[in-house]
């Protein structure tokens, strides 16, 4: 017993480490991921397991950065690497150099699992979706500064609505950490309310390339955004989780730009039409006033007011004289004369036209001055000289 060498913990650990690390070179291990953790240092920690056993695994930042998809719990993968022993804890782990999904089906399944979970949680609810502003002035774009997506969008905005301002937040759009950058960009834009709308997206690629947009952290950032978010990921056929959560899904980045701003050329045309309408309305208005004035000036009483008054006042004078002679009889005739004079003057007052049996039809406070302006099956009011009656227009016909 005494001759046997006593080893320190460190010594035996070192020996085991030597055996383990040299004894299992270039491993390829198939298993299911669980307890996945993406540490802020950039390293990935997880457990690989099957029905009978489990093994701790680690992927250091340098390698993790090269991953095109983000591993998630439940995903079946093949890990490539070596066994390493971590002396302070006396634990061994699989030191992963590479990781690949067992098949494309694995990513698809992870996608479906997350989609179902978020759907059940209500992240895709229609009621939560915000309308896009009609005329956004500042447009936030979360994408790669060097990709095709940003170039395409710049060209669409330049063509359709160059008066807007684009605010780009450059992010990684694929690989590990991309989802975190995209989510952070959405949050940053919200914190300062920097823009009126946000477009997140990238050009087409494989399901691994687009994976960042299928991650929960991005989905939640979109869901919590107070600024409306448009998701434009890949091609028309690609659907991502971000598409389902976003306030609007665009089939491609260029399409997103087209959906976000109206076509300035169409607006120019609209304003031209406005000017035309205003001009013709004013011309019509002035013409109709001219005509009214013309009618008045050409009327007998306007031409001859002096004569008329002279004539009338002479008559009145005469009547007064007669009045003196025959009080009772004369009184009647005086009042008759005055009535008739008053009636003639009143006839020229447009407002009293109503007394002659005409009426004014209004709908929603607007005068219905022509058949064309009448709205069928709508309430109308008809103004007579002595008040208003309520009516409804039930049909139109040609005169």
């Amino acid at each position, binding site marked *: 017993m005494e001759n046997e060498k006593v080893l320190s913990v460190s010594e035996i650990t070192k020996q085991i480490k030597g055996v383990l690390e040299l004894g299992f070179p270039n491993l390829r291990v198939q298993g299911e991921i669980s307890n996945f953790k993406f540490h802020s240092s950039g390293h990935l920690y997880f457990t690989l397991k099957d029905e009978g056993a489990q093994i701790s695994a680690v992927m250091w930042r340098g390698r993790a950065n090269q991953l095109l998809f983000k591993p998630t719990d439940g995903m079946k993968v093949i890990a490539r690497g070596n066994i390493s022993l971590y002396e302070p804890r006396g634990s061994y782990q699989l030191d992963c150099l590479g990781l690949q999904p067992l098949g494309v089906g694995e990513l698809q399944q992870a996608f479906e699992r997350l989609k179902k979970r978020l759907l059940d949680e209500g992240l895709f609810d229609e009621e939560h979706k915000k309308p896009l502003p009609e005329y956004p002035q500042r447009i936030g774009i979360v994408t790669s500064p060097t990709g095709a997506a940003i170039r395409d969008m710049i060209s669409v905005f330049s063509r359709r609505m*160059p008066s807007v*301002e684009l605010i780009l937040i450059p992010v990684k759009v694929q690989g590990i950490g991309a989802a975190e950058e995209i989510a952070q960009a959405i949050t940053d834009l919200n914190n*300062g309310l*920097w823009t009126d709308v946000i477009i997140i997206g990238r050009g087409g690629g494989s399901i691994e390339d687009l994976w960042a947009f299928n991650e929960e952290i991005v989905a939640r950032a979109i869901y919590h955004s107070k600024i409306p978010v448009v998701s434009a990921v890949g091609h028309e056929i690609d659907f991502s989780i971000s598409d389902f959560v976003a306030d609007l899904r665009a089939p491609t980045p260029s399409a997103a730009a087209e959906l976000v701003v109206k076509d*300035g050329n169409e607006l120019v045309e609209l*304003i031209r039409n406005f000017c035309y*309408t*205003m001009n013709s*309305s004013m011309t019509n208005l002035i013409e109709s006033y001219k005509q009214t004035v013309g009618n008045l000036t050409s009327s007998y009483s306007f031409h001859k007011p002096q004569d008329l008054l002279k004539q009338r006042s002479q008559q009145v004078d005469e009547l007064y004289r007669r009045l003196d002679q025959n009080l009772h009889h004369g009184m009647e005739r005086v009042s008759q004369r005055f009535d008739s004079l008053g009636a003639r003057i009143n006839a020229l007052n447009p407002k009293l036209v109503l007394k002659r049996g005409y009426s004014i039809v209004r709908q929603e406070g607007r*005068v219905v001055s022509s058949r064309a302006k009448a709205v069928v099956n709508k309430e109308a009011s008809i103004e007579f000289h002595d008040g208003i009656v309520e009516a409804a227009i039930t049909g139109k016909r040609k005169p």
Partner: protein
Amino acid sequence: MPKKESKHPFEQSLHRLEKIVTALEGGDVALEDSLKMYEEGIQLSKECMETLTKAELRIKQLTKDLNGKLQLMDFEE
């Protein structure tokens, strides 16, 4: 920190213009008021047209400085 207005000047102008056009088209505005609205309408049309046709796309980049503060910079393609 940029402030968010409820509506941007362009949108306000366009909506006001639309209202004026509808009112004038309705034809039941008094002559005096019509003239005032017409003048305003033409002025608004000019402004909107200018915004639409004379602008050049501005592109900025929002990045974090060393203290984590967001800053707007010119974007270079």
